[in-house]
């Protein structure tokens, strides 16, 4: 089946091609092993409270874990609101040079270092959101627990969620665009063959691509979970657990970024941080797996 030269070539590719897989296995294993100490010592109680007091060796990861999930959920919503219109605009309404320029800009933004988003968000986005989103929401709907606190600095779970959401828009848009544009032309023709207007065709084609769009959002959620730079500059970095989105909070990534450097000074700080990574990594891997297999299955069903 292979010639001898083919075989040699393949064998020379093999170690390089599986090295990435090895990195994943090794890093997850390392994280798991390193977190063992904390999990054995504190048990699940580690995830039942919110304390960061290394001097007294008392830890609780509830706030950052909840914070990570909440910011990612807000990011997901933000990406949903911004990505679908952007993808449709590119796919349906832009043509020729403008279309390629806009697609290139989206790709460029996806490749931009997140520190750029982080600085912009902390300087401009947070004050903007405070004035035009958080304060109005708080005064209009103070009885809803999510909006029940008055924003003080603006640095909050809400701000971090929106900022991270904006940073994953290019990624999610690209995924949605790929799915949308891979819908075979025969279904577009089918829409026109029943007298659908452009708007009605878009509605039908979007519903056709729905599983892939959901998967794209799930992948975006997984990416938001791991976002660190933007989180640490906008979330407010407080171990205080609040039901209100406008209060400062923490995310796991932000906690690690701000505490890891000094963690070696204490007996359990480091292993506790590792166990917090473990939680996030496992969730992210599960979601990524779900997202990518869903997209593949959708392609097999609709595109091929």
């Amino acid at each position, binding site marked *: 089946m292979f010639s001898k030269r083919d075989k040699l070539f393949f064998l020379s590719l093999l170690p390089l091609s599986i090295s990435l897989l090895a990195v994943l296995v090794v890093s997850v294993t390392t994280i798991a092993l390193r977190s063992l100490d904390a999990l054995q010592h504190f048990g699940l109680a580690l995830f039942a409270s919110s304390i960061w007091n290394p001097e007294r060796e008392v830890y609780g990861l509830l706030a950052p874990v909840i914070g990570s999930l909440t910011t990612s959920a807000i990011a997901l919503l933000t990406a949903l609101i911004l990505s679908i219109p952007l993808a449709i605009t590119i796919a349906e309404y832009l043509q020729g040079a403008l279309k390629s320029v806009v697609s290139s800009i989206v790709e460029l933004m996806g490749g931009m270092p997140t520190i750029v988003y982080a600085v912009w968000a902390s300087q401009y986005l947070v004050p903007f959101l405070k004035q035009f989103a958080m304060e109005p929401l708080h005064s209009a709907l103070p009885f809803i627990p999510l909006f029940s606190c008055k924003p003080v600095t603006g640095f909050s779970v809400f701000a971090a969620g929106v900022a991270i959401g904006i940073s994953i828009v290019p990624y999610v848009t690209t995924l949605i665009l790929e799915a949308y544009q891979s819908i075979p032309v025969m279904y577009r*023709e089918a829409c026109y*063959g*029943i*007298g659908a*207007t452009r708007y009605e065709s878009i509605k*039908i084609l979007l519903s056709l691509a729905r599983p892939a769009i959901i998967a794209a959002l799930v992948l975006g959620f997984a990416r938001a979970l791991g976002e660190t730079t933007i989180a640490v500059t906008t979330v407010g970095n407080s171990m205080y657990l609040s039901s209100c989105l406008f209060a400062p909070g923490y995310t796991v990534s932000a906690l690690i970024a701000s505490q890891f450097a000094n963690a070696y000074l204490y007996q359990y700080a480091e292993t506790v941080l590792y166990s917090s990574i473990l939680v996030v990594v496992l969730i992210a891997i599960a979601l990524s797996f779900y997202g990518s297999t869903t997209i593949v299955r959708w392609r097999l069903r609709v595109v091929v």
Partner: protein
Amino acid sequence: MFAVEMNNVSVYIGDRQILKEVTLRTPYNTVFVIMGPSGSGKTTLLRVINRLIDLVEGARVEGFVKVLNFDALHSDPYELRKYIGMVFQVPNPFPHLTIYENVAVAAKINGVAKSKRELDEVVKWALEKAMLWDEVKDRLYDHPHKLSGGQRQRLCLARALAMKPRLLLLDEPTANIDPVNARKLEEAIVSLKDEVTVVMVTHSPHQAARVADYVAVLYDGRVVEQGPAQQLFLRPSTEIAQKLLRGEI
């Protein structure tokens, strides 16, 4: 008065001329068949009628096309298509919608049915007209991938009918399905004349003979002969038509 009227229609894609000064007339409530060997421009001709030709990059249409009461080349194509249903060579029911929804969606977007009851009636009517009702009435909520190719094509016919079109375009609708299903589809087509005008493309003279009231023979982008089906099949006047009927081209 004609449902479709073409005068000197030429179509270019890039530098290539696909249709050459086509002139034809389709009377209302007839089955008008465009017959010709593959590559003769049949599909292009069909797609000029509902402006699907617009989707082809670099396509240019010249001449005059009147469809129903539209000056087709200078009308809003979306408005025009509201009156024209189309069934394609490859069955293309929406894979994410159920059998019922596939038919209902066409009725809904064209405002054919206002209530759920009306919608149910239109769906049933369309499936009956497409001769599919008996086979799917107990599984309207299955997805179309559970149907055979021929059933899927009849579902597409039902979908096109549910929009209550005034003109129905069929692009070799039996090309990809088995003979038994093809016969059923032909039967359905013939029975539609009271409701719509049908323009159908086929490369099979036998099929044309079974369904057509009028026939136009297309060869290398030109209409070489057209007229009432019986006359054309009994006494074809051009050599190309004779050869086509003998199956030599």
